[in-house]
């Protein structure tokens, strides 16, 4: 069950977090953070993962990296089933897959210098020592457009954008082939966002990287991704080419999500249809039965309330999970 063209394959992934109560911490319910999703990421491709807060985007990214216990379903990386690996094997495997975090202020240890932060993966995975180690750290700093002399500085001496560059350099240190970028630009200023997006694009070309790019900002995701998967309440509702997603969205949730994003051009924006979704995203502890979007869907019919729609192929690489789309 693996295709040489696909670097990452996810099969029927579930991640439930127990909700406990009482003195004995008895399990009373599950938070169904990820509830049965399957997808693949091709080599050299960027797959965008979008959705509102609490939809399970981050959990999906971390499940691929096997950062939780109790993951159900299979994750294949380069043809290897990660769920069958022993801890030590997984540790070595992790060298190939890294994570870039959202908050450049919380994700760097304030007591380590930039050089130590960036060099840590090199030490952990025993990739270089002595002068070679120092050369590699300097090279990584240059790669993210910082200066090698900055290696001795501490995180507080850097701006938000520069810290995110340090986080990127750390992710690159072990020379991975796959990086999960979890909201890498959301905490940054507008003019700095563009700098980091361009940096990530350049690194992908130069180092032949494959990205899973998680973000809530559809404009950013569309700009950087080849394909985009839209998540709602633990499930993928639509997955397709990023141009196709904008030009021809099929799932009612995707349509509403796109229409909620204003385009920074009043003349263009005025011509767009606006769909205002009612209410909030329901709790993932008790998701609605059937299609879990049906309580907010303006087109819901009877079958939506009882039967969960499956992802079906609409031609090419366009998949959608909706009873109304035939």
């Amino acid at each position, binding site marked *: 069950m693996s295709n040489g063209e696909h670097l990452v394959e996810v099969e029927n992934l579930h991640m439930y977090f127990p909700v406990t109560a009482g003195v004995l911490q008895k399990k009373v319910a599950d938070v169904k953070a990820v509830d049965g999703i399957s997808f693949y990421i091709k080599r050299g491709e960027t797959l965008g993962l979008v959705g509102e807060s609490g939809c399970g985007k981050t959990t999906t990214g971390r499940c691929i990296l096997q950062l939780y216990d109790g993951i159900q379903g299979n994750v294949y990386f380069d043809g290897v089933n990660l769920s069958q690996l022993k801890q030590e094997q997984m540790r070595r495997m992790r060298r190939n897959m890294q994570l870039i975090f959202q908050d450049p202020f919380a994700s760097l240890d304030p007591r380590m210098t930039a050089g130590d932060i960036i060099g840590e993966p090199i030490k952990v995975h025993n990739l270089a020592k002595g002068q070679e180690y120092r050369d590699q750290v300097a090279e990584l700093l240059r790669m993210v457009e910082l200066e090698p002399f900055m290696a001795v500085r501490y995180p507080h001496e850097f701006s938000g954008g520069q810290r995110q560059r340090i986080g990127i350099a750390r992710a690159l240190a072990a020379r991975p082939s796959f990086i999960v970028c979890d909201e890498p630009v959301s905490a940054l200023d507008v003019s700095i966002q563009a700098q980091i997006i361009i940096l990530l694009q350049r690194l992908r070309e130069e180092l032949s990287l494959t990205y899973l790019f998680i973000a809530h900002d559809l404009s950013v995701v569309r700009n950087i991704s080849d394909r985009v998967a839209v998540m709602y309440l633990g499930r993928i509702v639509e997955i397709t080419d990023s141009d196709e997603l904008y030009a021809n969205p099929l799932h009612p949730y995707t349509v509403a999500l796109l229409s909620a994003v204003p385009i920074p051009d009043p003349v263009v924006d005025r011509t767009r249809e606006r769909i*205002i979704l009612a209410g909030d995203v329901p709790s993932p502890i008790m998701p609605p039965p059937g299609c879990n979007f049906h309580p907010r869907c303006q087109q819901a019919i009877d079958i939506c309330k009882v039967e969960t729609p499956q992802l079906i192929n609409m031609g090419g690489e366009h998949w959608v999970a909706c009873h109304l789309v035939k």
Partner: protein
Amino acid sequence: MNAGIKLDAGMIPELFVRKMTTTDEIVLEVKNLQTYFYTSEGEVKAVDGLSYFIRKGESVGLVGESACGKSVSALSVLRLIPYPPGIIVGGEIIFQGQDLLKVSEEEMRHIRGNRIAMIFQEPTTSLNPVLTIKRQISESLELHRGLDKEQSLQETIRLLKLVGISDAERRADGYPFHFSGGMQQRIMVAMALSCDPQLLIADEPTTSLDVTVQAQLLEIIDDLRSRLGTAVLLITHNLGVVARYVDRVNVMYAGNLVETAATDEIYGNPKHPYTIGLLASVPRLDSERKKSLRIIKGLPPNLARLPGGCAFHPRCEYAFDRCRVETPVLEEVSLGHMRACFYDVDKLKK
């Protein structure tokens, strides 16, 4: 867009004010506002010589990156600058004909939350966690509008329904933690509107919210503006939100305006290098995939160590000698469109 509040001639503030004082349409006029902070790093000119105005029923956007002075300018209007270290050094804040910098603290308390309301970015930290929603909204109704208990309860429920909270009778008894972020922000809007303010200042009201909730909330605010004629000052860094919801845009950089124009004009015909750069650096939903973004090089400035001359010159691709020594002021480039820049307006690339 409300056609009745489109801007017309005479946008240079002096001219404009002279004209408008007769029609009494301006709700707020800020003139040459200077708010400084005295910190260990020295004097920080967070707002330095800012002037702008808002008319009745108009929605004005204040756009800029973090630490450009957007929030400080809004807090200055309400005189909520913490002292020390901050102090309003100079300027005038004319609200409905009255200079707020000259009124007593007692009078100011009657204006805050009553005639001028404010919504902040973080609803979670703005609501009192140990009081019910009902209690928090009815407090201002009893205080500012002199309603009795029964009346204020009725009014609270009406307001909660107005901002789209269903089952308001029951949910008014809830505490803030019973509500999601989006719901809490609606409660903040209900509270802000409880006294029919003439001016609503919304400081990044949707930044911590999801896009679908952001759309719901901004539609509510915009609907109230057009129905009740409330003037809205929308402070944000999101250029998409500005394009959709405001009539006029003020672009701020390093404590002052660099450009101001009607929304269509500023997006279609930006004339300041910073505005041009900012617009080119945002990814757009409708642009082609992997269309390369333009970059504004460098970092937003440290307000404690501003460069001489135009504050933007170290990041500006057009900067020349004059920019390094002389500070540009707002000058009209076309009707109602002003910018603070020395570079030849016709030579700017778009």
